């Protein structure tokens, strides 16, 4: 036990004195809340505000009432565009063509063909086109209802079925984009923060010629691996905790009520998320140690381990595209935690069975990696690779 204590103290001293490693761990934790804050602000603005749209009218004089109606919805004539936005709207080139006989057709009660032309594949035009369509349809409907009303017919006859939509999403579910990002960031923090400590204490020590003398000491390789694992995962856990705390703090400054969403992380949810992520921190560090102990040099370790960082980003993204999720995804490492975190952010009650299943599987895989690595360090192959 005193041996393990000495190994652990030494690993902690080396890790915490490695300014570069600590910097990397903390940058991740500081950047994540900032990114989430800025992104949510932008998304809310786009969702809530109705910035002016400038379109080129051809034949505007034939339907002055329509033009006036559009103006109320902040859809304006290109002629009035301010100098700053001129280039933008010139490029977007949204046109409405009103035929010469519009007034005549309207008086006769015949349909007026108004043409809206724009590049529908342009993503930035999605919202303007939707707004123009809504506005024109509304105008048309109002006139149509009036015509029917004048003829003494109940307008409701036009609506044999009225669809009532009930959104079963809980209020906080609307903050999906925040929870998606936060979940991803937390997993990345778990994988990124301990990374340089893991590489440094394995491939780094080998390169500095201190690994061989350590293996010659009367201490079991299992203790050596466990001490290194604890040290790297501690840094990783610190990274996760900081990311989580700073994010729940910074999200408070985003006014989500504007888009009818709420997002709050109470102490209970934070605790459950930590419970989920601590095994992931150990798993990530074990995986990194495993790979970098096999590497021949510090450089090789770095490039191989950076591939592992893709895991926490790729798995949750891949999960988004799987609609019918096979049940085993619920308890595999990373995917299990990712799905459970999504539930927590949505406010869905926690499925404790899944929490324990996924944590259990993660811990079991970590344990297997540690045992295998301890065995590997005893093998002649590793010893011969030392020099």
């Amino acid at each position: 036990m005193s041996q393990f204590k000495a190994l652990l103290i030494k690993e902690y001293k080396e890790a915490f004195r490695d300014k570069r490693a600590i910097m990397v761990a903390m940058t991740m934790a500081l950047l994540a809340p900032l990114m989430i804050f800025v992104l949510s602000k932008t998304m809310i603005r786009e969702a809530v505000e109705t910035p002016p749209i400038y379109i080129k009218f051809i034949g505007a004089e034939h339907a002055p009432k329509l033009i006036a109606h559009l103006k109320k919805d902040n859809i304006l004539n290109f002629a009035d565009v301010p100098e700053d936005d001129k280039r933008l709207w010139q490029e977007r080139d949204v046109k409405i063509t009103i035929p010469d006989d519009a007034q005549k057709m309207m008086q006769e009660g015949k349909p007026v063909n108004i043409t809206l032309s724009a590049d529908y594949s342009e993503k930035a035009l999605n919202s303007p086109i939707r707004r123009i369509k809504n506005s024109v349809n509304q105008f048309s409907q109002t006139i149509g209802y009036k015509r029917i009303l004048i003829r003494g017919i109940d307008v409701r006859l036009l609506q044999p079925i009225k669809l009532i939509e009930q959104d079963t999403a809980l209020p906080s579910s609307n903050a999906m984009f925040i929870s998606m990002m936060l979940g991803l960031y937390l997993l990345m923090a778990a994988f990124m923060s301990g990374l340089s400590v893991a590489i440094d204490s394995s491939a780094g020590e080998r390169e500095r010629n201190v690994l061989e003398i350590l293996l010659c000491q009367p201490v079991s390789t299992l203790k050596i691996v466990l001490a290194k694992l604890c040290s790297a995962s501690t840094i990783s856990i610190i990274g996760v905790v900081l990311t989580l705390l700073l994010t729940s703090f910074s999200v408070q400054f985003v006014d989500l009520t504007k888009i009818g969403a709420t997002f709050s992380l109470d102490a209970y949810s934070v605790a459950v998320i930590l419970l989920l992520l601590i095994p992931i921190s150990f798993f990530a560090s074990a995986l990194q140690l495993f790979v970098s102990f096999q590497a021949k040099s510090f450089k090789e370790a770095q490039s191989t381990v950076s591939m592992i960082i893709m895991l926490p980003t790729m798995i949750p993204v891949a999960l988004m595209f799987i609609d019918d999720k096979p049940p085993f995804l619920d308890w595999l490492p990373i995917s299990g935690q990712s799905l459970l975190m999504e539930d927590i952010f949505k406010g869905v009650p926690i499925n404790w069975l899944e929490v324990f299943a996924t944590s259990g599987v993660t811990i079991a895989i970590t344990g297997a990696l540690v045992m295998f690595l301890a065995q590997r360090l005893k093998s002649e192959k590793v010893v011969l690779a030392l020099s």
Partner: protein
Amino acid sequence: MIEVQNLTKSFGDVNALDGLSFTAKDGEITGILGPNGAGKTTCLRTLYGLLKADAGKAIIDGVNVSDNPLKARSLLGIFPDKFGLYERLTAYEQIDYFASLHGLSGKEKKHAIEEIITDLDMEELAYRRTQGFSQGQRMKVTLAQALVHQPQNFVLDEPTRGLDVMSTRILRNHLNKFKAKGHCILFSSHVMQEVAALCDRVIIVANGKLAAQGTPQELCELAGEAQLEEAFVKIIGSDEGVAA
């Protein structure tokens, strides 16, 4: 006491050790001499329990290394050929680390560390981080970490490589002191003068086998040469081996 009996080890087609036997006694400095690739490092690594011999055994103070490597290692102090340091630790912390790995603790540990620091005259270095230490200073730290637990047996793998005269003298003095206390010292080297000056007995290894052994004087007489270097070349150069 370190005994090596009929040690055999091959890597693929290469026979690194081919039935090597020798004994390093307590109270003596035993030198292993051999050309590059003779099997010196393989022999020492087998002694540390890092490699497993195909046949034969290594015994340290009665403990068979392959049966109980951890126990055998606790009886050894090792000065490796490439001594790296933990550059973010101070010299004291590094010595403390190795003392703890050897099971020392509390007052006993503190006393052992202070003793070795005084012994090696490294009080000034003790509380500095080892980053940027000179080769001689690094040697002292490595020596201190190997000897802090006062091992009965001390194995050095080419210790004087890259050391200046002053550092070599410190090392030599320390080895003599250690020998006087009745410890067993095994010493591998390329430097003939070093071996001639320091060793009580010399073991010459060639092609994984014992080529000759004896005091430097005996070896010179055996080969009929005045200088150990000439004797060495003659002994490893002959196909039959002068003596086995």
